[in-house]
């Protein structure tokens, strides 16, 4: 009993410290959010305070300066289709290369991991060459393919770790019962991958949503811009109108923050069961 009595105040202090730490950690975001509701003059006068005269002018202006709805549309299309493509191509490939214990699959695994070592800026220009040879430039399809190549390594890495933790007896017995490999994968394995897929959706979703350089060059200015490119355009680096900068920043970021908050649980369980055990 005495132990428990001792613990209560300590737990209180621990919780208080954790909350304090979290608040300090979020402080820069507080700056961005609170200043996006202030006028330029108010930011200069009191950058730290809560907005005393909150205004939506900055957001209104951000909406006016760029066509936000179409930016969101393009981003959503690109992000959703790229993530879907990546999940499909890498989960299926990962399944085969982890289950077949032969040299070819070991090689394919190592081959897939090469991509992790490559800084993304490096392959951009040569990729654009291959894209224009295939007539995929300026098209969302082209960007889709580019992401398929760029993040394949990471998703393979995630899925192989996770599939390793699923007992092989499960699909082997289905195979003996006469089910086809493709059938087993889609009917039995893929549903079991849900936590890992959640992890992949969050990671890929945030990387692709936030990406800036690749859409800028691959989509050009003809097939619409993504929100990140569009916002960056609107901000420009010439401006020191921080109120507008922050309003743009928030418009660009909040969908992805919400996605994370919604999928947090699955994301965590995916990581727990997956990569770290592999």
């Amino acid at each position, binding site marked *: 009993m005495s132990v428990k009595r001792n613990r209560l105040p300590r737990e209180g202090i621990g919780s208080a410290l954790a909350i304090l730490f979290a608040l300090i950690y979020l402080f820069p975001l507080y700056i961005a959010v609170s200043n996006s509701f202030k006028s330029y003059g108010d930011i200069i006068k009191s950058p730290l305070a809560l907005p005393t005269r909150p205004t939506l002018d900055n957001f209104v202006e951000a909406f006016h300066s760029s066509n936000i709805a179409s930016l969101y549309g393009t981003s959503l299309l690109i992000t959703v289709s790229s993530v879907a493509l990546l999940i499909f191509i890498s989960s299926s490939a990962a399944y085969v290369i982890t289950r077949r214990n032969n040299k070819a699959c070991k090689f394919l695994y190592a081959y897939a991991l090469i991509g992790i070592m490559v800084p993304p800026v490096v392959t951009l220009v040569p990729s654009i060459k291959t894209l*224009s040879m295939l*007539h995929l430039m300026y098209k969302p399809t*082209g960007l889709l393919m580019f992401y398929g190549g760029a993040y394949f390594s990471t998703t393979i890495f995630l899925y192989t770790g996770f599939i390793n933790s699923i007992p092989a007896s499960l699909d082997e017995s289905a195979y003996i019962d006469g089910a086809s490999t493709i059938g087993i994968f889609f009917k039995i394995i893929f549903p079991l991958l849900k936590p890992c897929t959640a992890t992949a959706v969050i990671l890929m979703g945030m990387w692709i949503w936030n990406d800036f350089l690749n859409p800028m060059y691959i989509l050009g200015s003809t097939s619409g811009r993504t929100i990140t*490119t569009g916002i960056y355009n609107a901000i420009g680096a*010439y401006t020191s109108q921080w109120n507008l900068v922050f309003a743009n920043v928030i418009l660009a970021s909040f969908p992805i923050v919400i996605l994370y908050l919604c999928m947090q649980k699955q994301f965590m369980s995916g990581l727990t069961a997956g990569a770290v055990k592999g």
Partner: protein
Amino acid sequence: MKKILSLILCALLICGTACAAFAEETKIVFCVNIQPQLPLEFWQSIADRYMAAKPDVKVEIIGNPSSNVTLPQYEKTLLATDQFPDIMVMQNPADFVPSGALLAFDEGDLDYLADPNVGKIDGKQYVANYKKQIIGVFYNKDMFAANGIEVPQTWQALVDASETLLAAGIQPFSLGLKDGWPQGQLANMFAGTDLLAKDPHWGAKRNADEVKFNNPDLVKAMEKYQTICTKYCGSNITGITYTQMLEQFFTGKAAMLPIGSWVNAEVAKAEQDFEVGWFPIPGDEDANVVSVFVNEGLSIGADTKYPEVCKDFIHFFFTDKELYGEFLKSEQLFSTTKDPVEYEMIPLRKNMEEQIANMTEVEGFESMTGDDAFLPGLKDYFTNKMTQNIAIGADVASELDAFDEEWEIAKEAIDDAA
């Protein structure tokens, strides 16, 4: 075998989705230089006016997506990836001409310009120069008067004036390295007065390897530049951006702003509570030299399908006086057409014109044109590296030696390619 078959199948699938037919229409892509004074809307208005006049042509505007990607950098990426525009704002044709990317204008194409020959490369003109800018020092007249300072006519007087300001607790110059280019303007000014005034075609001699960057005149110029940067620009020159420089000067935190005439556009806003004056950087004896930039203009891509439409568009740009006047007004520029174009000028801008009327004009050092132009890549070395290193106190002579070494590398690259 099955493996190969399925590979082929997949490849076909991908290509199949890709091959969409291109609709035939006269469409030209115009790559512009987006700046605070010349936002996207301005360039779009040019395109709109042209399309209204020529309904069968479609003009599409593209531009560098942010100031983090400079225009030449963006254009090089477009070129490397086969997306080079039909018409573009061109700042350094010397980087593009060796690879055959630009279309040369024919004799007579640019007759409407005052000097169609400025900046020719190997006798051919690749750029329709659309503006002239000068660089010099904007100063706070009230501060000068309050401290009994006259406009400096010699280098020594400039140093004395700076000392007086410093003693009065005022930061003499506003300058920053963070954006990478503004400090280069001050270096250009000194190179102009101390080197190019003696020998306007020094650039061509450097390109022929008859002279070196490490020579007494340029050493002297860069030492002066270093003096200003290390002694008279406040304590945090490395962290200051261009916007902050303007803020410092126009809010009265610094007395002088060494930069280009485009700042007239800021002066015109009349948000400052003091009178702004302007003087060129003085030499040892007198103040009689001004550096002029004529390196920017419109160029046509060599691979355009519609060279005649492009030329017509450029002609339209220069001869639609309202449009061209609007363009000049945005930065209070100097026109380059045969018929001078009138626009609403601020008094300071007129005063500049009077001041430089009798001065020796030399080209801006980093952006000399035609056969005087720096070899490809050297301008970036000058702004991104050398002038920044000198500004934070590096040894001038060894920096210039390093610049000469860089020249060797650039030269070798050109010879290798030939």
